[in-house]
């Protein structure tokens, strides 16, 4: 099954997961706040590539961005439209003219695209010169290995190949909400080549760690101070 079909099938479950307050704490209190630090202030127009049900665009809109979202799932686009302008579109063939945006964001979406190279190339095409592309992905190191136990002090091992990472299917089932994740890490070189081939320069890179408060709430997240979980990039279209 393509990753696209996989996510469309899960649209309802995913939106319950994303929209139940406090349910996705790793997003709310760890990943997303760190990502926002890399995002430039609102400009002319912001594109959200792989917008899902719209939570990222909704927050950017609160911060003054004029957001246009795209997603391949019709149901997710319908939900995102409650928050901001959104269109059903293939990230590999964006329905916008060249240089339509001064900012593009792809929050935890590039590694879920069937063709990440084309998605970054298209995002770059619709950016004006001087525009920025901000991306958050599963950290390539995390995608390459696994924890040997569900403990804060568990060991992290890479048994296969960092270069050919296998998609990891796992189910989150809490508070009556069940979502299947298909995490696929892309090796750093492959990610960087997506940017290079699209004519983008990586000007900032972050490997966020959970805050003290977050580790107190979720003790198991302490291990995310030994092995990075997310990777954030900001690239410039010169």
């Amino acid at each position, binding site marked *: 099954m393509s990753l696209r079909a996989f996510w469309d099938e899960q649209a309802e479950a995913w939106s319950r997961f994303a929209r139940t307050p406090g349910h996705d704490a790793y997003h709310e209190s760890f990943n997303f706040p760190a990502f926002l630090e890399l995002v430039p202030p609102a400009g002319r127009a912001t594109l959200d590539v792989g917008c899902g049900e719209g939570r990222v665009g909704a927050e950017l809109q609160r911060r003054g961005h004029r957001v246009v979202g795209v997603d391949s799932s019709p149901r997710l686009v319908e939900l995102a439209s409650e928050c901001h302008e959104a269109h059903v579109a293939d990230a590999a063939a964006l329905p916008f003219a060249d240089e339509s945006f001064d900012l593009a964001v792809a929050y935890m979406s590039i590694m879920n695209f069937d063709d990440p190279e084309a998605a970054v190339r298209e995002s770059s095409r619709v950016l004006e010169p001087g525009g920025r592309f901000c991306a958050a992905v599963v950290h390539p190191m995390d995608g390459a290995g696994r924890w040997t136990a569900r403990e804060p002090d568990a060991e992290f091992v890479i*048994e296969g190949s960092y270069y050919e990472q296998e998609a990891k299917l796992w189910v989150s089932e809490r508070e009556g909400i069940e979502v299947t994740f298909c995490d696929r890490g892309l090796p750093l070189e492959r990610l960087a080549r997506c940017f290079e081939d699209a004519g983008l*320069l990586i000007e900032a890179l972050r490997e966020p760690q959970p805050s003290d408060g977050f580790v107190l709430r979720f003790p198991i997240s302490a291990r995310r*101070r030994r092995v990075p979980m997310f990777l954030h990039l900001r690239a410039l279209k010169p």
Partner: protein
Amino acid sequence: MSFNADWEREAQNWIAWARTPGHDAYSEYADRFFELVPAPARATLEIGCGEGRVSRDLGDRGHRVTAIDASPTLLEAARAADPAGQYVLANAGALPFSDETFDLVVAHNSLMDVQDMPGAVREGARVLRPEGRFCVSVVHPMSDAGRFESREADAPFAVRWPYFERRRVEEPFERDGLSITFHGWAYPLEDYVRAFEDAGLAIEALREPRQREHVVAADPSEVRWQRLPMFLLLRLRKLPGPAGAGFSSRF
């Protein structure tokens, strides 16, 4: 003891290690590094040249190279092997050159060996002209955070040290009668890229080269380095505008 004294003490070991044909990983990875290096222009600087092999190879490719190192013994060995070359005893954190002197700066496995990595990056960027390139090889941050559990081809790689911690590395190696201790530091990727960012350098290309087939054929344990990258290679571009302009002032 300062870092420079460490490498000065290690100088003879390093000269023997680096100059024994096929002994060091350089013979397996250098061509991938040079693929990232732009064509020669007016002036190239090498930071941390050691006994000089990278400068000699750059010279063979037509670069007009000035090279610096802080170890007198290593620098003398570099000069002796290339009497026509420009070799200058200097600290990477205080380069004796004026701003915008070079078109290309090269730091091959030296940024992780200087005491002040961000200072060396800042200095390298200062002496680089706008739009000049900065080519870097470092030990891969992920591979520096752990070790393979054995020499078996499918040995698990286990993370042993917190990835995010700047950590002193003092690692002895022995092979075919030669020994060396690598003195340096391990950094997370973010530390390197923040240093680039603060110096006004952006990443134009990044590579994670795999070990070569012919090396694996001769030594099957090397297949482990086809599963994980040993080195991280980067080509950076100096952005026009004031160095270290930082995020907020650029918008």
